[in-house]
């Protein structure tokens, strides 16, 4: 791409976010700064030392021992304690992490004792705060894995009201599982729960996570991070509300307001990568959405910047220059507190 192509894509990416989110586009100065970062010839970009941020994670040591594309895992046969010690001591991660590989609260219930043992081992061998992560994953509650008819199938058959009623019932089932699993891992000293990939199954997933957060705060006072699944809350139901606010259609700067009301301590906005557009377009768009979220937030903002989100390319091995330039630009221009 030429410099002018990149400048043009930056402007278009900003404008796309501004149009969709009804928010301000990045200033001309910020767009020029982003251009400077992106066209720098170095392979690795970085922020200045005093601007460094901290990292939480929904993946962590899975990147070493996982062997599936979404974790970017390299399939090293290694246990969770050793992997976390490597993440902490060798790679300088700011937090340690545990999550069952299936990564759903519902499926975690059956193996909770195994998880408690592994978490206990990590806690006694590391220094950094431990985050436990899992997803609400409402899809796991549909037959044959769960008790409910598939809401998508019901609606496709024209049974709209029946589908909506079923979806409403799902919310409390998912909420109860999030609370139960979180309480079990808190019993042995887990310090933070990452309710991750929130709203992947739409507004019901968001509502179940918010309600779980509210309940956990009252019962345990536990620190809670909420990571989203996408930039936009899908209206599978369409009418679900939290504190009088319709959840469907919310973008990150509105999502964070709901998260704060529920008691969330760290919010992880997602901006999806559009694979038909260039990396500059996607980074500019991600920064525009995230900056607005950061401006209205009173709690730390840790944007998701893994494969296919936060402006990063959709690739199992994203190029180092793309990752580090996106990382630098996000920290410099979107006023984030971490990643």
């Amino acid at each position: 791409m030429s410099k002018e192509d990149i400048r043009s894509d930056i402007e278009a990416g900003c404008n796309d976010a501004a149009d969709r989110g009804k928010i301000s586009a990045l200033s001309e100065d910020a767009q020029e700064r982003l251009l400077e970062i992106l066209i720098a010839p170095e392979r690795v970009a970085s922020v200045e030392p005093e601007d460094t941020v901290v990292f939480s994670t929904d993946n962590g040591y899975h990147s070493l021992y996982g062997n599936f594309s979404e974790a970017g895992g390299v399939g090293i046969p290694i246990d969770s304690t050793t992997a976390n010690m490597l993440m902490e001591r060798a790679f300088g991660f700011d937090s340690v992490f545990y999550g069952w590989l299936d990564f759903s609260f519902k499926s975690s219930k059956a193996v909770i004792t195994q998880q408690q043992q592994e978490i206990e081992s990590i806690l006694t061998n590391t220094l950094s705060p431990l985050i436990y992560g899992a997803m609400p994953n409402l899809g796991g509650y549909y037959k044959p894995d769960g008790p409910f008819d598939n809401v998508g199938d019901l609606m496709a058959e024209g049974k709209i009201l029946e589908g909506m009623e079923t979806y409403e019932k799902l919310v409390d089932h998912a909420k109860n599982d999030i609370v139960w699993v979180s309480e079990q891992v808190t019993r042995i000293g887990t310090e933070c729960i990452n309710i991750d990939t929130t709203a992947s199954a739409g507004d019901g997933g968001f509502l179940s996570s918010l309600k779980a957060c509210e309940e956990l705060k009252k019962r345990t006072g536990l620190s809670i991070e909420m990571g989203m699944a996408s930039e936009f809350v899908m209206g599978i139901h369409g009418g679900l509300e939290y504190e009088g606010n319709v959840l469907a259609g919310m973008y990150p700067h509105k999502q964070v307001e709901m998260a704060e009301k529920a008691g969330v301590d760290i919010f992880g906005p997602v901006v999806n990568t559009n694979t038909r557009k260039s990396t500059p377009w996607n980074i500019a768009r991600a920064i525009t959405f995230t900056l607005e979220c950061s401006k209205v937030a009173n709690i730390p903002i840790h944007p998701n910047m893994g494969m296919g989100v936060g402006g990063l390319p959709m690739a199992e091995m994203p190029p180092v220059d793309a990752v580090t330039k996106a990382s630098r630009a996000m920290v410099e221009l979107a006023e984030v507190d971490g990643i």
Partner: protein
Amino acid sequence: MTVAHGMASGMHGVRTAGDLVMRMEMKGMRLGEAKEYVAGKLGVGVPELSDEYRMKEVREELDIGTVMAMPGAAKGLRAKANIAEVLDIKIPCVDILR
């Protein structure tokens, strides 16, 4: 990807004071406030929090654990108990697994 992010913008955890700032963000403090809080408790300036050389000295003095496996120095729960005291916070596993 994780390492690339770390090199680009990370505080680098126990190599510096990243784990301590992370603990304060988990309590809802935004980055600037969290860094100020940790720097105050450690008796250093905010810019020093990301300085590996300075923070290794500070962490050894306070016995709150470093990236090195130093004989006799606090590690694991013992180091975390010291972190809780220095930062004036509760660390659940220190009380539960002590």
